[in-house]
């Protein structure tokens, strides 16, 4: 018997760490991984609320989020490879073509 609130607080912790990592990290692959971490945190809240309301729809929502995350990872990593071919770097500070 665990209060649902503890699961939700754990998801909030993971989401905040993901948001902080998104802002602090400078490597584009690691930034992408922190987006995945935030998606996972939101999935945990969906599952916790599905358990609380005894409904299946929250779990189905998580299923769709997983599918979209997989598609997003495939396209995003292809973009990273194309970016690396052009700029020869993974550091986001050096990808500043649109700046100024």
């Amino acid at each position, binding site marked *: *018997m*665990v*209060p*649902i*609130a*503890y*699961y*939700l*607080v*754990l998801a*909030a*912790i*993971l*989401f*905040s*760490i993901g*948001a*902080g*990592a998104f*802002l*602090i990290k*400078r*490597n584009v*692959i*690691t930034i*992408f*991984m*922190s987006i*995945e*971490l935030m998606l*996972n945190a939101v999935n*945990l809240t969906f*599952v916790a609320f599905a*358990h*609380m309301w*005894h409904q*299946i*729809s929250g*779990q*189905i929502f*998580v*299923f769709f989020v*997983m*599918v*979209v*995350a*997989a*598609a997003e*990872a*495939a396209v995003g*990593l*292809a973009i*990273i*490879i*194309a970016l*690396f071919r*052009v700029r020869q770097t*993974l550091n*986001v*500070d050096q990808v500043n073509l649109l700046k100024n």
Partner: protein
Amino acid sequence: MQIALFIIFGLLAVAGALNLLFQRHPINSALSLIVVMMSLAVLYWSLGAEFLAAAQVIVYSGAIMVLFVFVIMLLNAGEEERTHGSRIAYIAGIPGAAAIFCLLSFVFLSEKKQLGMTQLGGYLTSAVSNISEISHTLFTSLLLPFEVTSILILVAILGAVVLARKEL
């Protein structure tokens, strides 16, 4: 029993997330993200979502993270150098993330009574297992979104192939 599971794997998830934040090398970050995802799978299982626990291990830890590790090794990514990023990120972003965390945990903990407790085991409309209930909903009332999802995956595959070609 369940509180012990929750504490062990919750702490493991938080430790993995912090390790992702503090490691310099991307491969270490990827491996700690796998730790986070595996412990989240255990937490899904303890919330009665067996199908999602399996899908988490197969899709996230199996497919997505393998893709990440593959790209890290393909691009031969080294340690990142710490530079000062944008100043707005440090001034507004980090306190913003902390504020989101404080707000969310305050709301959740103050509504702790209303949110209730978890019970281990079958809790939905009993007698039917989790996976058959999901598949029933997915293939009857949500059939159209499910099919649209397959088109999305197809578009994503084509996009990845086009983007990763040699001559772009």
